[in-house]
């Protein structure tokens, strides 16, 4: 919000005035209203204990704002990246040109668990493997954006993006009269169009039947699954609702079996098909992979799409962009040391006090070390871990994430934020005009994950 210590950036002026005229009583009331709203609509985490109270993510009332020009750059950069990641998947599951060109070593790809050998030689509709990509971005200066992570499997959080906006419009209608905020509520429609544009070859239906496949109510993103299927007007199914007969996939309905063309799956590869992946799995649809490979159904995202967001592959994304698109990357990667390489490991060990070390397979802000913020003993502990299993880790510099004004105990204070916008790729590639802003609610914290005290904000993109 601030340009320098005390100068407010232009596009935050309205918000600043609005904040000035809010009393602490109003803030308290509005906070309570938001919390009640989120509980009532059920945008909560499930816990295993059914009767225990479900948790909600803290919601901060102050929106984060991007100007039109700021957003243009992000939009172009994210779409560019999403296209390159899909091109990469199409390449490695077919010719493997990028390996032949010695840009990415083949061991890095083919030995990964997220690489799916059964996908080899198969091309999904339009060569799109990952139609919904969430890209985690941070900002360190007026024009410095870095990509922290790509999410090519089943990125979640879009329901927060939409619900945060809904609650803001409901609580503060005047804010939206006085600011030209680009709407985002067409996201579900665009998502459905994207899915429908990815119908399998054997689909004769001009309006392909899409379903959303959920693991069920105990999944932490279950609210999002039901929210999205509701908004798209498609069935939300569990794997027991689906079955394979002949060369097609059907769902069990009160009318009898109904053919399904596109499955927007929100379950992991391992649980898709017990015949193909995890034979121990009790969930899953036996035979679905066979139907998929023979063009009877499309599965979005494609099995094996996860290789593209592997932390070891991440390092190569800028090169992918040059290789497949012939373009310069618009968004930068964070400088990353791959501990698998001896020299880089040595550098990391020598400079660990200054670095952030992450587990390659870790997520949720767990299993990481923030060097400058850690005690000597935990640093030593990580050093031992690193030396034992170097290929399990990468390291990055500690970025000075941008601050966003946040209400803490009724006072406006700066807290670090990141951003996850959602990119859709089907017949066309498009970016939601907004995203999920996560905020580290604890003072001085760099961790925005909800499991560790992170909250969320509404994210505005101002119209031109």
């Amino acid at each position, binding site marked *: 919000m601030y340009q320098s210590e005390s100068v407010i950036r232009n596009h935050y002026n309205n918000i600043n005035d609005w904040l000035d005229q809010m009393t602490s009583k109003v803030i308290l009331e509005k906070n309570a209203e938001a919390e009640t709203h989120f*509980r*009532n*609509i*059920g945008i909560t985490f499930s816990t295993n204990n*059914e*009767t225990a*109270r479900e948790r909600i993510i803290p919601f901060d009332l102050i929106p984060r704002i991007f100007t039109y020009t700021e957003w243009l750059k992000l939009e172009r950069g994210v779409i560019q990246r999403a296209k390159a990641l899909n091109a990469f998947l199409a390449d490695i599951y077919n010719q493997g040109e990028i390996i032949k060109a010695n840009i990415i070593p083949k061991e890095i790809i083919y030995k990964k668990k997220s690489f799916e050998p059964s996908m080899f030689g198969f091309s999904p509709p339009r060569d799109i493997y990952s139609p919904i990509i969430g890209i985690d971005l941070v900002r360190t200066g007026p024009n410095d954006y870095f990509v922290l992570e790509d999410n090519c499997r089943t990125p979640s959080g879009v329901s927060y993006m939409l619900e945060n906006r809904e609650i803001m419009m409901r609580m503060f209608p005047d804010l939206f009269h006085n600011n030209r905020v680009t709407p985002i509520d067409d996201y579900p429609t665009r998502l459905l169009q994207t899915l429908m544009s990815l119908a399998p070859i054997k689909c004769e239906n001009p309006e392909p039947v899409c379903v959303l496949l959920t693991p*069920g*109510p105990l999944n932490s993103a*279950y609210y999002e699954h*039901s929210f999205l*299927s*509701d908004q798209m007007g498609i*069935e*939300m*199914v*569990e794997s*027991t*609702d689906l079955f394979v007969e002949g060369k097609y996939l059907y*769902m*069990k*309905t*009160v*009318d*009898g079996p109904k053919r399904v063309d596109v499955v927007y799956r929100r379950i992991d590869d391992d649980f898709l098909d017990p015949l193909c992946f995890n034979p121990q799995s009790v969930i899953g649809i036996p035979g679905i992979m066979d139907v998929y490979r023979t063009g009877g159904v499309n599965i979005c995202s494609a099995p094996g799409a996860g290789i593209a967001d592997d932390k070891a592959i991440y390092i190569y994304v800028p090169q992918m962009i040059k290789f497949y698109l012939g373009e310069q990357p618009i968004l930068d990667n964070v400088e990353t040391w791959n501990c698998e390489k001896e020299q880089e490991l040595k550098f990391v060990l020598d400079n660990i006090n200054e670095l952030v070390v992450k587990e390659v397979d870790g997520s949720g802000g767990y299993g990481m070390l923030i060097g400058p913020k850690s005690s000597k003993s935990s640093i030593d502990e990580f050093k031992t871990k690193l030396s034992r299993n170097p290929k399990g880790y990468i390291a990055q510099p500690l970025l000075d994430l941008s601050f966003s004004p946040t209400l803490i105990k009724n006072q406006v204070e700066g807290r670090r934020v990141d951003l996850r916008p959602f990119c859709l790729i089907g017949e066309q590639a498009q970016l939601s005009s907004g995203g999920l802003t996560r905020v580290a609610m604890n003072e001085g914290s760099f961790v925005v994950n909800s499991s560790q005290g992170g909250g969320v904000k509404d994210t505005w993109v101002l119209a031109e």
Partner: protein
Amino acid sequence: MLSRTAEYLYWISRYMERAETTARLLDVGYRMSLFPNPSGYNNEWESVLSAAGAIEGYKNKYDTIEQRNVEDYLFFDESNPSSVYNCILNARNNALVVRTSFTPESWLAINKTYQEILNLKEKKFTKSDLPDLTEWTIEQVNLFRGSLSSLLRNDGYNFLFLGLFIERADNSARLLDVKYFVLLPKPQYVGGNIDNMQWSILLRSLSSFRAFRWAYNGNITATKIADFLVLNNNCPRSLSFCIQNIVKHLTNLTCSPEKVGRIYNNLKDLNTKIQEEKIETIVEYGLHQFVTQFIRKISSVDNEIHKEFFN
């Protein structure tokens, strides 16, 4: 519509209906406990428990029948599958799965109810809170029912109402079964205090106390009450009204006409009989037998609905 969705919708309204019935029964018990009754209050609480189908479960847990325990068992107890708490919890868990199949208002109605009952459960309630709890439950169920009026009139709607009327038919019939003897014209009871009280229990628990007065002129008699609760198509809790509506929502289903046909065939005799019968004939034949048969029939229709649509 997914078979699972249909099944969950059906059960959501069964649970909500059951929550209301249980709450009303508690209210009846509470009222009775305020009146002097020579035979003691416990009898009333016992018949409340039997009408709620909870007598066995209760006796497994408690040795004696006491108001406080009955209230707790019927309203909050997690081990009683028909407690108001469990009904709401189950309805909410089902709704969570099928919230896409009804309106946001319906989901909100159920989820708010759930959030509130968690709060109520945490608070320690006292005996005199019971009327508030009952009133609250009825209000919540009405909110839910009201929200259904904006639903698309599709199969989901019909499954919701099939569930509602199957549950109501069963609840009404069970209540009648527990209390059928007060409707038998035995000269020694007529006009007696106990009789009046028993009748009022029956009518109140079927939310029909005042409606009955409007529907029938003159003296209250056992036959009139029996007619009202069994055969009167204007009474929204009578057996005939429930059957009529089960038939209506069943035949309104647009999916699988042959499945609908099979269930309808099983139901149509009962429907014809109940629409044409005179209450005197039923009483002569045996109200108890009639009601028992009715309960059996409803249960077989319920089984068929499960078999045909939900498997």
